[in-house]
């Protein structure tokens, strides 16, 4: 008998998202010896934090969710935004939109730690670095930062580190982008840097500063000649950072040619949608001397063991994973996907195409300016590329007329209006804008013979002379066919989630469902300027409010800020919030931050950025925070204790029983508890961090809530806080929202950080509902325990809770087999590639071991295939240990095996080619082939090359 209830399909997505079927789940439980998933939960998660039915909101089907999103996107009023302020509309070439931005082969990959299976996106990122180096005329660039504001802040701290000056004063030009100034001020305050804001042409020479930040062209579009400023600053021992618009640099003399030590900026307008503020890829370029100091990832050229050119992330040891509190920056997840869109935009258009686009933009504005001047409008600029400010007695009326015609202009005050022309601006727009601004019907053909005097626009002395994008990569793929194939070739080289499980611990590589992804490129979400009037963004406001509400329910906290663009930024924002709280109570000198030795490297790095002193708390042999050491350290620093940063479940993948006690000890001493929520995956629907002690936590929406990793970003790292911390949450740049008060300053350029990817998490939560989310948590814990059980006969499982169970991930200790066979954890990781797998997290948090996280999305079959691979590798190590295969010639040390290697005419190794390539004996047609052999890390780090190598090196194999 079917009832009307049978018509309900609102929870259909849950079984699409969760890999194992109910039958599989029953089998997995049986394997582990449990009767029900509830029994497993009650033995895994401590009683004193577990809650029942924590989430009681319902779910939607995929179609319903898409429909709801469609409605919200329609509430964002689609306007042509000529606001500028560092955000410009752009045409994402359709070939890039479809084959890269909307392609899981690109967006589901992880940060390219395993270089041999990441050559495609590494090449794209190297192209990105080359673009930045060419446009800025600097010898060295990194592979993206989170946004222009944080890039400028990073430039400031970099200059303080490398500069010779003893000054604690930093100069910021008053005509920098306002949100950049705001982010720099936030960053400077805890570090005791005194920021002086002024006019660089008149104020700078009187000051003793360690560095200065200029904007080029400035916020009003003016292009100043800063040569003398640079010289003068250098003479006084200061360093110069320039925030530059890469599109303008196509036509302008680049900062590297007139004295910049560092150049930062955003590549958004190279094909990356506005998206209400992000995600976009910022960049940093610098002098050669600072190459070991530059924050973020740097892609370098090295070679594989056969001498073939191969790319890899260089200088990894400078990063916080190793340097911890001595790291130069806390940045971890960056903006790889968006950097790759920008880099492909340049590959597709090439130098000529880019020049045409830049010239067209400039010419449009020239025509507009000449018309305005002819009509008697006073345009303030003496120079411009794409932006101007003009005087008017009725700014409000101009904005109103503009909006009526579908344009947003930049609000400056009652008597001036700003305007920026972009790639999407047409000649018709210019005609319309003339009418809007001069407010009278102009002549029939107003623009045919306008007077474009040559002196206008770009100052003669600042016209670009040097060539850009001369490397052949930027001069080959200009037809759509060629472009499509180039991206396909690169995509093929990489192993992403659309090919195989990526069992990286602490990364939560779960499904990024198509329905979640689709809305982000809808015009209603992607074409919105971050500083558009609030009444045009009601759809976004609605989505954000609902997402905030759901995340508060999920975490048990009362307030949230979506501004941080990655987990690292969340940590930083959270610690600043804690700092502001202590200050508000007159406890300014609380500056000690306790961090367990097992913490992720971003934790100590963020603490140092917040000017806190890091004190390490030991872990005991079973991996938990050592409570007696904690008590001792708390007692020692009692009155100075600011916070503890704990990860829960711990980075060892265990629900520590003592978590409430840890929080209590710290609270009793007047400290606050910061929770690193990278592992929230194991708690959604089952425990509420806001209820068991922590005062603030960050979430990684790019882990727990389905935002794809994009090959190393984007991310969203919101912070959720308890009631007493709400007043201290970050304020929004440009005071878009009124509640300023006691909040810490903005920590990102855009008011809601990476707003355009929030629909992904919204859709996931909506389609799973409270019970689906809870089930996801349960299955991820079940799968991790299933793997631990299956592998426990062959490897040690390093840490478990009191009932011998792990949380949503487990550490596989391969050290015994490694030492018996005299091989390394690297050898095992690279051998997994031959089996078609991405290695689990390697050597973190415990050196020479693997941390495995399956997530709820992996089907049982794939989990079994992974376990089989690990077990077969254990068998292979036995053959090495027994001497059947020599230590220096076996499938592990020679891994990964490329097709080229295996096709060699002669084969002299003690194992067969089939054993090398098809180790489980099945000749699968879908086998993944690594495209390069083992990469030589040392050679690449000794002589760092971070520009595109000569074209011949792309020919071989490839």
């Amino acid at each position: 008998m079917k009832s009307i209830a049978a018509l309900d399909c609102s929870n259909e997505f849950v079984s699409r998202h969760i890999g194992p079927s109910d039958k599989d789940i029953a089998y997995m439980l049986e394997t582990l010896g449990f009767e029900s998933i509830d029994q497993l939960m009650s033995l895994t998660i401590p009683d004193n934090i577990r809650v029942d039915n924590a989430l009681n909101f319902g779910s939607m089907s995929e179609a319903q969710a898409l429909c709801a999103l469609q409605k919200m996107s329609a509430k964002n009023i689609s306007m042509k935004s000529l606001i500028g302020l560092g955000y410009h509309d752009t045409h994402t070439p359709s070939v890039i939109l479809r084959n890269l931005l909307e392609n899981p082969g690109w967006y589901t990959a992880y940060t390219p730690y395993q270089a041999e299976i990441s050559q495609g996106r590494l090449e794209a990122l190297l192209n990105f670095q080359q673009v930045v180096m060419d446009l800025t005329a600097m010898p060295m660039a990194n592979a993206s930062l989170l946004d222009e504001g944080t890039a400028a802040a990073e430039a400031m701290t970099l200059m303080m580190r490398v500069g010779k000056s003893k000054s604690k004063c930093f100069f910021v030009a008053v005509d920098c982008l306002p949100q950049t100034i705001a982010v720099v001020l936030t960053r400077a305050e805890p570090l005791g840097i005194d920021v002086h804001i002024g006019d660089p042409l008149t104020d700078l020479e009187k000051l003793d500063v360690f560095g200065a930040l200029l904007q080029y062209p400035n916020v009003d579009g003016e292009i100043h000649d800063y040569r003398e400023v640079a010289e003068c600053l250098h003479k006084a021992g200061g360093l110069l950072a320039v925030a530059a618009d890469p599109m303008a640099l196509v036509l302008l003399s680049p900062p590297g040619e007139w004295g910049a030590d560092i150049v930062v900026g955003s590549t958004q307008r190279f094909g990356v949608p506005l998206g209400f503020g992000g995600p976009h890829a910022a960049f940093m370029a610098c002098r050669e001397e600072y190459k070991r100091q530059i924050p973020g990832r740097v892609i370098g050229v090295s070679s594989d063991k056969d001498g073939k050119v191969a790319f890899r992330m260089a200088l990894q040891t400078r990063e916080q994973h190793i340097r911890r509190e001595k790291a130069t920056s806390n940045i971890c997840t960056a903006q790889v996907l968006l950097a790759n869109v920008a880099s492909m935009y340049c590959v597709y258009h090439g130098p000529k195409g880019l020049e045409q686009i830049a010239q067209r933009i400039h010419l449009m504005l020239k025509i507009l300016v000449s018309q305005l001047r002819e009509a008697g409008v006073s345009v303030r600029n003496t120079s411009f590329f794409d932006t101007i400010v003009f005087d008017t007695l009725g700014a409000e009326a101009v904005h109103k007329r503009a909006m009526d015609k579908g344009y947003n202009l930049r609000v400056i005050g009652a008597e001036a209006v700003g305007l920026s022309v972009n790639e999407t601006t047409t000649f018709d727009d210019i005609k319309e804008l003339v009418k809007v601004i001069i407010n009278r019907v102009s002549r029939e053909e107003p623009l045919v013979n306008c007077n474009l005097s040559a002196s206008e626009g770009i100052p003669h002395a600042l016209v670009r002379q040097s060539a850009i994008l001369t490397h052949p990569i930027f001069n080959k793929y200009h037809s759509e066919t060629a472009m499509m194939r180039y991206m396909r070739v690169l995509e093929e080289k990489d192993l992403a989630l659309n090919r195989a499980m990526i069992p990286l611990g602490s990364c939560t590589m779960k499904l990024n469902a198509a329905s979640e992804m689709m809305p982000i490129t809808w015009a209603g979400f992607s074409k919105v300027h971050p500083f558009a009037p609030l009444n045009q963004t009601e759809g976004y406001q609605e989505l954000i409010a609902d997402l905030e509400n759901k995340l508060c329910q999920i975490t048990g906290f009362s307030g949230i800020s979506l501004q941080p663009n990655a987990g690292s930024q969340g940590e930083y924002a959270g610690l600043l919030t804690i700092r502001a709280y202590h200050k508000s109570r007159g406890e300014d000198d609380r500056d000690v931050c306790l961090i367990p030795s097992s913490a992720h490297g971003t934790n100590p790095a963020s603490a140092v950025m917040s000017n806190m002193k890091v004190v390490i708390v030991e872990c005991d042999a079973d991996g938990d925070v050592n409570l007696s050491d904690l008590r001792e350290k708390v007692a020692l620093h009692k009155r100075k204790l600011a916070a503890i940063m704990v990860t829960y479940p711990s980075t060892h993948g265990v629900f520590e029983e003592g978590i409430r006690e840890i929080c209590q000890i710290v609270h009793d001493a007047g400290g606050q508890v910061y929770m690193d929520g990278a592992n929230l995956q194991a708690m959604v629907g089952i425990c509420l961090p806001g209820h068991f002690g922590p005062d603030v936590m960050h979430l990684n929406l790019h882990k727990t809530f389905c935002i794809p990793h994009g090959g190393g970003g984007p991310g969203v790292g919101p912070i959720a806080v308890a009631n007493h911390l709400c007043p201290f949450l970050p304020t929004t740049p440009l005071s878009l929202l009124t509640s300023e008060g006691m909040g810490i300053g903005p920590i990102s350029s855009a008011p809601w950080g990476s707003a355009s990817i929030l629909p992904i998490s919204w859709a996931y939560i909506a389609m799973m509902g409270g019970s689906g989310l809870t089930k996801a948590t349960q299955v991820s814990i079940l799968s991790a325990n299933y793997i631990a059980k299956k592998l426990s006969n062959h490897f040690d499982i390093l840490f478990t809770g009191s009932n011998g169970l792990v949380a949503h991930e487990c550490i596989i200790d391969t050290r015994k087999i490694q030492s018996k066979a005299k091989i390394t954890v690297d050898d095992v990781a690279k051998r997994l590639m031959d089996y078609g797998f991405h290695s689990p997290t390697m050597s973190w948090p415990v050196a020479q071991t693997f941390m495995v996280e399956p997530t709820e999305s992996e089907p049982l079959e794939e989990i079994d295939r992974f376990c089989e691979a690990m077990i077969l590798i254990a068998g292979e190590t036995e053959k090495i240990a027994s001497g059947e295969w020599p230590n220096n010639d076996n499938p592990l040390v020679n891994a990964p095996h490329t097709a080229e290697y295996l096709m060699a005419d002669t084969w002299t190794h003690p194992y067969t080619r089939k054993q090398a390539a098809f180790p489980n004996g099945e000749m699968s047609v879908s086998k993944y082939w690594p495209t390069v052999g083992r990469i030589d890390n040392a050679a690449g780090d000794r002589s760092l090359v971070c520009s595109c190598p000569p074209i011949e090196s792309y020919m071989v194999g490839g």
Partner: protein
Amino acid sequence: MSIKYSKDHEWLVIDGNIGTVGISNHAQEELGDIVFVELPQVGDIVGQGDEICVIESVKAASEVLAPCSGRVIEINEVLDSNPQVINQSAEEEGWFYRLEISDFASLSELMDSEAYETFLLAGEE
């Protein structure tokens, strides 16, 4: 001329009032392939225990502490272009810098070869 070691795995060879400093062979083995060294500048005044060099390998980056106080008079420029010399010959060719020792009293804290060996063995347990 005798070689002394610090607990932080630096070595010091003393010749009159001139000391030559590097990292021990054991430290080199622990670090793996060394890719970069940042040396002090000639003329720098260093105190015992100061972090005056940075060393990076493919596995790690760490500070190298000064085993004694003094003024730097010479640095091993070969290391700039050829840091792997440290892997090949940590306690000879791979020296870091020479200094004029200013405080001989502090040298008593250093170990001789034998004591250092014992120290390493104790660490392994």
